[in-house]
């Protein structure tokens, strides 16, 4: 009998300590969301490198009684990497090492397209404030329109950390859907004749220009907008590794090993913010909707400014490259290329679209910096 009692008490204790005992309907819904995201990542291949770990982090975050954030452990360390804005600049270091700024340097006027596409950020900001978010939350939501994951995470951790999960998921989900979201907007705003415009070949860019640009732009932007010095500085340092020609090992590490490691931590940590308590709210649905508005607004802003540049240059600029002004490097540039080829076979816009695409990265960081300076 004593043996039976001891066994029963032990079983009860195991049951009361188990996650099943504390499992809520909300946890179940969020695990289902995580599984759906896993399906999108690995079966549909929507940004699998990012959505995969985000989805798995979401599942992990919804197991009760794990104690992930009670004492120092790996999960808490990853959370610190996001909370203290360590990971986004490191991702930018890798992006800088991967990105060729030559198309931008060859045609600096495309920076204007990167600026124009930021209108989506502020359209979403206005929309968010009109539906009841406060100004800091609205700014963090608006930056989704920049189509720049690290900057979205960077800004939301500073202005609205409680919305981080929803903002990150919206940003990365829409970035993976850029090939579906942008083309209808691009076609609606341009004529076939405009889409058929073939652009002149870009001038060659010297090594001097490629090395000087990251140095000069870091000094200029960091002095002007210190809150984004970490982001822009790392982006340009990575690019300097790439272009200097004497730091191949550092460039290789930044764009491969380091970037991959930080991507795992950043994406998993972002998923870990998606616990049922913080995520299952009406606000999340609003954020998802506002993110779509931001993406469409940014695309439209870039294309409309592209049309203006087309008129001003006497038809030398194809307005389709304007849509690449939302960052999403290099996917948005690829969409411009595909639409250009669809309008006229042999119309190669990829390199021309990389200019506004890179400008979009800088523009989104600048927009984040100005909002931080104004609102923090």
């Amino acid at each position, binding site marked *: 009998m004593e043996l039976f009692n001891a066994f029963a008490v032990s079983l009860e204790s195991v049951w009361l300590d188990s996650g099943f005992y504390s499992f809520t309907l909300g946890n179940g819904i969020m695990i289902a969301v995580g599984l759906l995201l896993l399906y999108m990542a690995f079966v549909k291949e929507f940004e699998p490198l990012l959505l995969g770990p985000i989805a798995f982090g979401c599942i992990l975050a919804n197991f009760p009684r794990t104690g992930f954030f009670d004492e120092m452990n790996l999960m808490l360390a990853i959370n610190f990497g996001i909370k203290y804005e360590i990971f986004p600049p490191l991702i930018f270091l890798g992006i800088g090492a991967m990105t060729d700024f030559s198309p931008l340097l060859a045609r600096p006027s495309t920076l204007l397209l990167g600026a124009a596409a930021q209108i989506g950020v502020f359209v979403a900001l206005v929309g968010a404030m009109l539906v009841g978010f406060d100004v800091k939350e609205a700014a963090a939501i608006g930056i989704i329109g920049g189509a720049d994951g690290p900057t979205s995470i960077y800004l939301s951790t500073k202005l609205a950390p409680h919305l981080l999960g929803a903002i990150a998921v919206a940003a990365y989900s829409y970035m993976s859907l850029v090939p579906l979201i942008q083309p209808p907007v691009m076609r609606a705003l341009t004529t076939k004749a405009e889409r058929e415009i073939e652009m002149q070949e870009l001038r060659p860019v010297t090594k001097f*220009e490629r090395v000087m640009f990251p140095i000069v732009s870091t000094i200029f932007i960091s002095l002007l907008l210190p809150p984004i010095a970490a982001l822009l500085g790392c982006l340009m340092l990575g690019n300097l590794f790439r272009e200097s020609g004497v730091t191949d090992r550092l460039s290789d590490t930044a764009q491969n090993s380091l970037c991959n490691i930080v991507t795992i931590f950043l994406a998993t940590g972002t998923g870990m913010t998606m616990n049922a308590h913080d995520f299952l709210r009406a606000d999340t649905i609003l954020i998802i909707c506002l993110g779509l508005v931001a993406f469409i607004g940014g695309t439209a802003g870039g294309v409309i400014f592209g049309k203006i540049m087309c008129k001003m240059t006497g038809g030398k600029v194809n307005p389709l490259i304007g849509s690449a002004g939302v960052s999403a490097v290099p996917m948005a540039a690829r969409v411009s290329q595909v639409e250009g080829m669809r309008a006229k076979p042999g119309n190669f816009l990829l390199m021309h679209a990389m200019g506004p695409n890179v400008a979009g990265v800088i523009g989104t960081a600048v927009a984040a910096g100005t909002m931080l300076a104004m609102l923090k």
Partner: protein
Amino acid sequence: MDQPVTTNPFVIMLINMTIVFIVLVSLSFLIRLIHYCDPTKVKETPAEEPKAVAPPPPPPVVEQPVEEGIPEEVIAVICAAISTYGYSVGQIHSIRPVHNNHAWEHSVTYPNTRLTH
């Protein structure tokens, strides 16, 4: 600063878009300045009068247009694909297999090429 300078969304939009444009226009001027100051750029020289030179003799060896060993089906598929992009088959100079082009293979399969941040 504890309180934001303004909470009017339209004012925030106007101020921020203005700043974004000013910063990026300034950057474009900096790029032009770097190009202007570049000591390594090749200076454009006025085009010289072309000297009267006898036309070069035709190359002694004519390259084989289609290398042996490539199946006709493959040639047909390549021609069809090129036609789809608006070029005529007569513009094809040659069709040759590429051997040991490891760099290209790596650039295609490398996982980072899929990373969008």
